[in-house]
């Protein structure tokens, strides 16, 4: 091959590559703007505060209050995070500082498979195990009556799905803590746990919070598994054993019918935009913190 054709080929491929880079970098903006464009109709129809804080949801009458959905989303996410926190933290510490290499080699596939199981499978598991368990045992234990399809079920299923996601980030973060610091603390006579408690956890506190921030944004957008177990009843839930209706479930459940009503269509696009904004904001804050921490070490 002579020099000219090689050069030409290189330039063509470079052009292709450059185009792809631009496209990918612009993609979040393209997504956000197309959703904003579609939700323009509803934003002109009702004010933002009305959309976010009204609990009247009557799409056919043109009233769109997202408050019940936002509350459900927040509750499900909160329960999911609370339940997953101790398991993730303890496992991450154990796998990083106590476990042997064999244990880590054994656990890595376990974590990977947990991460790889599709959310619809977690949903099926939730329906088979978690929902009846809540309806029969957990809710009566707290003195409530529940079908099992509830905020609690959504939170529990979500917490299991969050484990591999948060755990991987935590392990990564603990590894950025310098071995020197660890050794220095040990040499001063501190025990392993004391060192972890006072040195590692303090040193990586911002990172740990960021890991849960990423988990939070993950949880906020999880759709199918939660939708399958959460009950999907519109209304602000009074307790955790009542059904809820999170934002992603709202979008997923109403897609087929809404096309005939432009305002409804716009409302659902607004829900998607809202979801995206919350998730992206939490993502950016958490990622920035992690990047900052890693650059410091």
């Amino acid at each position, binding site marked *: 091959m002579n020099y000219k054709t090689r050069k030409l080929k290189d330039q063509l491929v470079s052009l292709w590559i450059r185009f792809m880079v631009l496209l990918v970098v612009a993609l979040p903006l393209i997504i956000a703007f197309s959703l904003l464009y579609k939700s323009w109709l509803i934003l002109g129809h009702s004010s933002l505060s009305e959309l976010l804080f009204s609990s009247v949801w009557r799409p056919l009458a043109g009233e769109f209050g997202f408050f019940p959905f936002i509350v459900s989303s927040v509750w499900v996410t909160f329960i999911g995070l609370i339940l997953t926190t101790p398991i993730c933290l303890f496992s991450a510490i154990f796998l990083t500082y*106590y476990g042997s290499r064999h244990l880590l080699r054994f656990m890595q596939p376990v974590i990977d498979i947990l991460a790889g199981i599709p959310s619809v499978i977690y949903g099926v598991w939730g329906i088979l195990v978690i929902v009846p368990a809540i309806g029969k045992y957990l809710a009566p234990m707290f003195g409530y009556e529940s079908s099992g399809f509830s905020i609690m079920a959504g939170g529990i299923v979500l917490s299991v799905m969050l484990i591999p996601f948060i755990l991987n980030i935590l392990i990564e973060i603990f590894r950025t803590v310098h071995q020197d610091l660890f050794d220095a603390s040990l040499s001063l006579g501190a025990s392993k746990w004391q060192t972890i408690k006072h040195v590692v956890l303090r040193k990586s506190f911002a990172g740990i919070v960021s890991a849960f921030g990423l988990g939070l944004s993950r949880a906020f957008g999880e759709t199918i598994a939660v939708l399958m177990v959460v009950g999907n009843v519109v209304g602000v839930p009074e307790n955790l054993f009542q059904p809820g209706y999170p934002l992603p479930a709202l979008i997923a459940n109403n897609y087929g019918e809404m096309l005939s009503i432009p305002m409804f269509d716009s409302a659902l696009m607004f829900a998607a935009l809202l979801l995206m904004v919350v998730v992206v904001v939490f993502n950016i804050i958490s*990622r920035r913190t992690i990047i900052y921490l890693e650059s410091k070490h």
Partner: protein
Amino acid sequence: MWWRKLEEKIIYLLMVISVASLVILLLAVLTSIFVKGAPYLSWEMVSQTPKGGYYFGREGGVLNAIVGSLYLSLGAILLSLAFSLPLSLAMNIHLRARPKIVNRIRFVLDILWGIPSIVYGAFGFTLMIYLGIKASLLAGIITVGIFIMPIMVRGMDEVMKNVPVSLIESAFSLGSTRMEVAFKVMVRQTIPGIATAILLAFGRGIGDVASVLFTTGYTDNVPTSLTQQTATLPLAVFFQLGSPIPEVQNRAYASALILTVIILVISIAVRFLSNKYYSNRH
């Protein structure tokens, strides 16, 4: 002193319980799917499309969904590869001298990676209307292709980052063009890693419902062209589970089992490939 010892013991116990619970949870999920699905799994389930009255419990299977899912994921992988391969090559060869830009791209990719699939679904839907195509295999491929792109780039970038600088530089010093370095050195060096990234993305693509809920439609036939609607396996699980008829629900469990087995096979393949990759390198 004794309380410190006690604290240490209690914490240790909690940690062991936590780690054990990971294994227990995985086994719990897998066994419940296997126990519930296995009795209803039959050759008919995987080899036939739904026949008349299938959704009232008559004969048929979910071949349409299995094939649909495979078509969809393969198409999405091919589409996504056209984005992610050049992007990861660019980050590690063309833009090597400009780490700031590369880090910015990585940041954008992380953001894209975090966007929930339902948002991609909504975006895919608006894109579909904008382009004037109906719910079809093609619309699903575009949506899933965009959705798995950041997953794929991340995997490829991860292995390309670790290719020794000296190798790249010696290729350049021998007079190779960037394209030659990219495809003859970089890609060839990282093939197992690229395959792993593709498999991971395949697993994500085949298991996701939220992104295809509005874009692929649903049909009982195996699609024969890109413009036809298609069923997918996770959607089949979801729809059949929503039926009030027990026979249909049981088939949902069997379909869930099929999906789980596919995912397990993929994770074993990923493990095998990445082990091979690392044993090659060291």
